[in-house]
């Protein structure tokens, strides 16, 4: 029993990681007032760039860097459209998603001729699992041993990084001057502007951070969890992350728990596939797949608490009207 629980929780961690990165990415963006439907596209673009670069340069770190670069570039396109051009942020996000979906496969096919995939990565060119100190020696301790050895130890570095990013994000958003200003432009940009802050610059910085975090998420998919890029490998994770962000009410610690919940649902769905649950019978996999979305809709409708977005999110800031 304990083994099964550990197994499910273990895969929960693995499945939550890309969601968590993307969710925190969305948090920075939306806290500054930029709605980001394009998380999905940035993850996908980063996944492709990371796998391609990791293969070409035979290094996961260069892969990660390439993923971040591509993701930031896409974020800047979104930033240019929604901050400088004051375009519709949802439309821009949709465009980013399509751009990534198309370009990754197109370039993948043109460069590697494997039907849009990148060549499989050898273990040395991926982020491998780390064994934490004393994991092997402590493995025999009852209960705590297996938890430490199998659940906490044995993930790749990006998994730990994603969870480390949570307190860091909290600290930046709520305890630094930059974070205060970021929240100010997301709530009331004209007040921030009057106080002498550059709304444009702050929002650009938020979009760049968003790009960096999406880069981690994408690189995790193709260079850590997977071994290479596959067409559409983000498979809606950007949208689940968006749902998680709303579910978490735009708060970093909540975001972590929500991503763990959604990851857990995913892990459970895989675990329970084709199995009977006592008293309920066989639950279709699709129920677990739809659950994060259903929960978010229910939350948004205000049936479990209230999800109130940053006040200025989605509204382009116009400094002066002529």
């Amino acid at each position: 029993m304990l083994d099964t629980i550990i197994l499910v929780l273990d895969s929960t961690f693995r499945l939550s990681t890309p969601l968590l990165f993307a969710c925190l990415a969305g948090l920075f963006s939306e806290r500054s007032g930029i709605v980001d439907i394009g998380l999905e596209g940035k993850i996908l673009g980063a996944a492709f760039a990371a796998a391609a670069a990791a293969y070409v340069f035979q290094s996961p770190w260069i892969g990660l860097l390439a993923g971040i670069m591509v993701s930031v570039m896409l974020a800047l396109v979104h930033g240019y459209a929604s901050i400088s051009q004051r375009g519709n942020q949802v439309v821009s996000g949709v465009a980013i998603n399509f751009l990534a979906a198309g370009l990754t496969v197109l370039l993948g096919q043109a460069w590697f001729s494997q039907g849009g995939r990148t060549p499989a990565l050898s273990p040395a060119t991926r982020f491998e699992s780390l064994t934490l100190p004393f994991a092997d020696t402590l493995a025999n301790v009852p209960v705590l041993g297996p938890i430490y050895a199998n659940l906490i130890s044995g993930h790749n570095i990006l998994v730990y990084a994603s969870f480390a990013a949570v307190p860091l994000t909290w600290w930046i958003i709520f305890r630094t001057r930059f974070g205060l200003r970021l929240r100010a432009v997301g709530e009331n940009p004209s007040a921030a502007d009057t106080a002498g802050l550059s709304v444009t610059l702050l929002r650009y910085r938020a979009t760049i951070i968003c790009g960096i975090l999406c880069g981690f998420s994408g690189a995790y998919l193709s260079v850590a969890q997977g071994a290479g890029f596959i067409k559409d490998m983000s498979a809606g994770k950007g949208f689940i992350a968006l749902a998680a962000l709303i579910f978490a009410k735009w708060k970093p610690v909540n975001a972590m728990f929500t991503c763990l919940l959604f990851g857990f649902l995913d892990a459970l769905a895989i675990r329970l596939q084709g199995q009977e649950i006592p008293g309920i019978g066989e639950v279709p996999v699709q129920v677990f797949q739809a659950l994060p979305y259903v929960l978010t809709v229910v939350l948004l409708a205000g049936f479990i608490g209230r999800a109130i977005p940053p006040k200025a999110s989605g509204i382009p800031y116009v400094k002066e009207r002529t």
Partner: protein
Amino acid sequence: MSKGQLPRWVDYGVLPALNLLAAFIISGLVVVVIGEDPFEAVKWLVWGALGYGEGFGYTLYYATNFIFTGLAVAVAFHAGLFNIGGEGQAYVGGLGIALVCLAMDRFVPWWVTFPFAIIGGAVFGAAWAFIPGYLQAKRGSHIVITTIMFNFIASALMVYLLSNILIPQGTMSPSSRNFEAGGQLPLLRNVFSSFDFGQSPVNLAFFLALAVCVVVWLLIWHTKLGYEIRSFGANPDAAAYAGISPVRITVVTMLISGALAGLMGINVVMGEQTRLLLDFAGGAGFVGIAVALMGRGHPIGIILASMLFGLLYQGGAELAFEIPTISRDMIVVIQALVILFAGALEHMFRPAVVAFFDRFSSSTAEA
């Protein structure tokens, strides 16, 4: 004409053309990056879409899909609502159409099934749009997010239904059984046998799409409801002050929008596939966003934009066949760039064009 303003033909003609041109130039650069000749690519694309009867038939077939989904997005736009859920609504609408066809196809000819299938598709599509519309109107949840969520819920629901309930016994692929003749729309190649449509699946749904365009045009510009929808979209507060109920307009607009998206299945499910397939909407719901943006929400514009995207879809398939390094995903890239330039960056060229016209008009005034 005062300073800073543009004549209508520039606003509705030149600016969209410039945006489109920018999208195509960047697409051309992508082709160059891949290492192919963009002009060669354009040649194959246009030839594949318009050069022969079958290709043209496919172009019309794809355009039909996009007219439905484009109208769906456009109607919602008029009320200031962004219905990003056309994909899910089309998908669920297809279920309604399929259920009608499965129930009736063995007993009656197609022209009896047809009106019921239209109702089935519209009702199912509208039902899928109703919940997001209602939640936005009554509970204040944002329609963009709810419709995105409903796309995924629709996808999970349809996978379940197709692989567990609608699948005929003894088969493995998740789809419904094939409709009999009573559930099949006549193909244009059989109706107009003098015109060579080759093996293309363009069918009577094309004319339904055109008819729906007229209906939408009448609805938006020549009825009280249409006036209310446009007023609400232009200024919700003023509309509410004038006695237009925001709840009613939001819900009704979403119902119409969902119904229009739901009709897309007539073309694919009843016209081409003659069965309900997994993921048959294939992204057409999202193309609708591009089509509505480019067509500026007007049925004429939507027809033209749909034809353009139909051309890209069919031409892109031909292109991928002739130049294998440019896979069909090129269409997705072009589509993305069109959405970016015609939608999010639509005002990028405006200052330059305005400056150009100001100089032009002042110089003619002096002369």
